[in-house]
């Protein structure tokens, strides 16, 4: 029942908001639906804590230690984003950047986007996983072009074509996976169920599986934003409305990476070699280094933090590629804290850009003078994402780096230099924005800064103390990721 609600509420929300979304109260209805989804996710999580992993509806869906916390995280960030988007979207509406029709599109698509991500996370069927990932692109394309400026149309077009082509590669990979599985599991729906595949992964044909994994990695890797397939990401993040940037960065990238890791587990089992891990380490490291150097050249604040997402996704991909219980633990923790921190930063950035009327960093000055909460939110978020102790990002990066020193010493100089460059470029740009003199305008609606501080508090908590069941899930998930 809890499970049905987790998927049913956002789907229903999407339909209801499409029908009545132009009403005055649509922003609150959006919050209510997101909150109900969050409650359902909590109930589901509680049930899993009490009863252990479960499969639903003829094994078509499943919850295991790997996806349970991602479901809770997705529902939580979805809820806080809807809280943030209420004042944000009203201000955009008052400034005349959005009409009520487009707000209706936004609210409906936001709920459907949540639905597709939760579907991708909970489905046991690798084919449905593909369908849900593609649907997640489709629901967000029109959100990226919501402002209908020439730049946003271009960003949306790029997003659609690049992710469409990428995801087509993933479909080819899925076909090859099915081809390999069909011999063992027989024809029909069972051959694409992940739990069934996992049981026989040792006997899957290695040649087919290695080719399949290359296609799957390139396909889903496009959505993760791995270099050199990342071109759509900075544009889509910078040109779309900020709540969309927050969920794209905080959630969609995680879900795509989740898909890659699921495929990696199968490939590792079939190949008995480190091909999958090596490929992931290569892509991950390249993303970290390239993104770090692009960071210093950015002028647009949302673009800069988009590149920071590429960098962090690179770190997580590298960690999973490296493998081993500690690195995978670090990767899972990093996924969680990055998602919380990055969405918090986008919330703060959203209000900061609304106050200054521009996304160009050189025109944003003295946030602290005008609004201490926005200024501190941005500053603390930036410190957290840069890996300052005692925030959680520090803990996860520390775990990943120390494991890298032991297992892959050649990679550590690259990682350290990239982290250093990223620190210098981001901090050097955020500092004058927060401190200093300013002439910013006041906003017609009070900004919602609560989500920012709730997220940052959680990240701080994860840096100091990880709840025992969460650590336990991480450990169990890390064990089978290998």
């Amino acid at each position, binding site marked *: 029942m809890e499970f049905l609600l987790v998927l049913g509420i956002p789907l229903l929300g999407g339909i209801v908001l499409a029908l009545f979304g132009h009403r005055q109260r649509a922003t609150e209805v959006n919050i209510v639906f997101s909150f109900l989804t969050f409650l359902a996710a909590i109930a589901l999580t509680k049930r899993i804590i009490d009863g252990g992993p479960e499969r639903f509806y003829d094994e078509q869906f499943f919850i295991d230690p790997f996806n349970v916390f991602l479901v809770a995280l997705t529902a939580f960030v979805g809820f806080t984003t809807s809280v943030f988007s209420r004042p944000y979207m009203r201000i955009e509406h008052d400034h005349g950047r959005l009409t009520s029709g487009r707000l209706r599109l936004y609210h409906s698509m936001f709920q459907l986007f949540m639905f597709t991500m939760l579907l991708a996370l909970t489905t046991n069927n690798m*084919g449905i996983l593909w369908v849900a990932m593609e649907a997640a692109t*489709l629901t967000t394309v029109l959100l990226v072009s919501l402002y209908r400026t*020439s730049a946003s*149309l271009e960003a949306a077009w790029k997003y659609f*074509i690049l992710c469409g082509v990428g995801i087509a590669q993933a479909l080819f990979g899925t*076909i090859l996976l099915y081809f390999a599985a069909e*011999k063992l599991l027989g024809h*029909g729906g069972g051959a694409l169920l992940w739990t069934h595949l996992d049981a026989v992964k040792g006997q899957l044909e290695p040649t087919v599986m290695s080719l399949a994994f290359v296609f799957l990695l390139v396909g889903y890797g496009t959505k993760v934003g791995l270099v050199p397939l990342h071109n759509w990401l900075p544009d889509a993040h910078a040109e779309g409305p900020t709540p969309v940037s927050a969920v794209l960065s905080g959630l969609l990238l995680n879900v795509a990476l989740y898909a890659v890791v699921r495929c990696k587990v199968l490939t590792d089992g079939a190949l008995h070699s480190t091909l999958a891990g090596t490929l992931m380490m290569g892509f991950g490291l390249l993303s970290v280094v390239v993104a770090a150097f692009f960071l210093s050249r950015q002028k647009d604040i949302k673009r800069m933090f988009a590149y920071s997402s590429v960098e962090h996704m690179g770190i997580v991909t590298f960690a999973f590629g490296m493998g081993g219980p500690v690195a995978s633990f670090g990767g899972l923790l990093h996924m969680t804290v990055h998602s919380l921190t990055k969405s918090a930063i986008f919330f703060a950035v959203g209000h900061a850009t609304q106050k200054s009327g521009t996304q160009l960093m050189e025109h944003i000055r003295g946030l602290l003078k005008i609004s201490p909460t926005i200024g501190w939110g941005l500053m603390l978020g930036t410190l957290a994402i840069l890996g300052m102790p005692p925030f959680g990002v520090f803990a996860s990066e520390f775990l990943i780096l120390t494991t890298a020193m032991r297992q892959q010493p050649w990679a550590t100089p690259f990682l350290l230099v990239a982290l250093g460059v990223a620190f210098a470029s981001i901090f050097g740009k955020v500092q004058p924005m927060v401190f200093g003199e300013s002439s910013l305008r006041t906003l017609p609606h009070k900004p919602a800064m609560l989500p920012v501080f709730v997220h940052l508090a959680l990240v701080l908590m994860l840096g100091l103390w990880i709840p025992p069941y969460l650590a336990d899930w991480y450990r169990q998930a890390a064990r089978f990721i290998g």
Partner: protein
Amino acid sequence: MSLSHYYGQFINLLAAILLLLSFAMLGQRRILSLINLFMAQGAVLCASTVVVALTTGQSHLYWSALITLVLKVFLLPWILHRLIRRLNVKWDVETLINIPTTMLIGIVLVIFSFNLALPISELAGTVTRSLLGIAMACVLLAFLMMITRSKAVPQVIGFLSMENGLFFAATSATYGMPMVVELGIALDVLVGTIILGVFFFQIREKFESLDIRHLEQLKED
């Protein structure tokens, strides 16, 4: 000669036609003909699915053939025709690389995909196993078409044609994906085309043209 032998030959013939159509699309300059070629590709795909179904007795393939027929022969071409009528874009397609060069690159791609598919084809137990290379070639040719076209509509036709190649790969290598997955894919393709249709109007409203070279403002400097 048994009946199944003829079926096998017939599928090979259809696959060859499919590849030929991919090349024809690559060389076609007119948008209307491009849509017609896409429609023909859909029809060939449908026919080949029916033949595979006849040979193997996999009854769910009839359903996928039906979906292909409805979606790729009727619905999508109809949407595309309507779209270009409403947008009034019947002019010739411009290519970024001239057509003979594109053709030559296409031939290289076909050889490449045959080589790539060879070890896998040998593993396949299906009657249609030799067709995986052709399917992969179709995917790559459609990809090439997307790269070389500068207008939005041909790019989308390239995208849809790529999906045709993937569908052909699924039928030829594995007798089709499970039904629920195939339905999901069909839904995604349909919704994607509709969203793109909406999107075309937005692009044209903004730029008064569907030339995607207008969409090159966002760059790293």
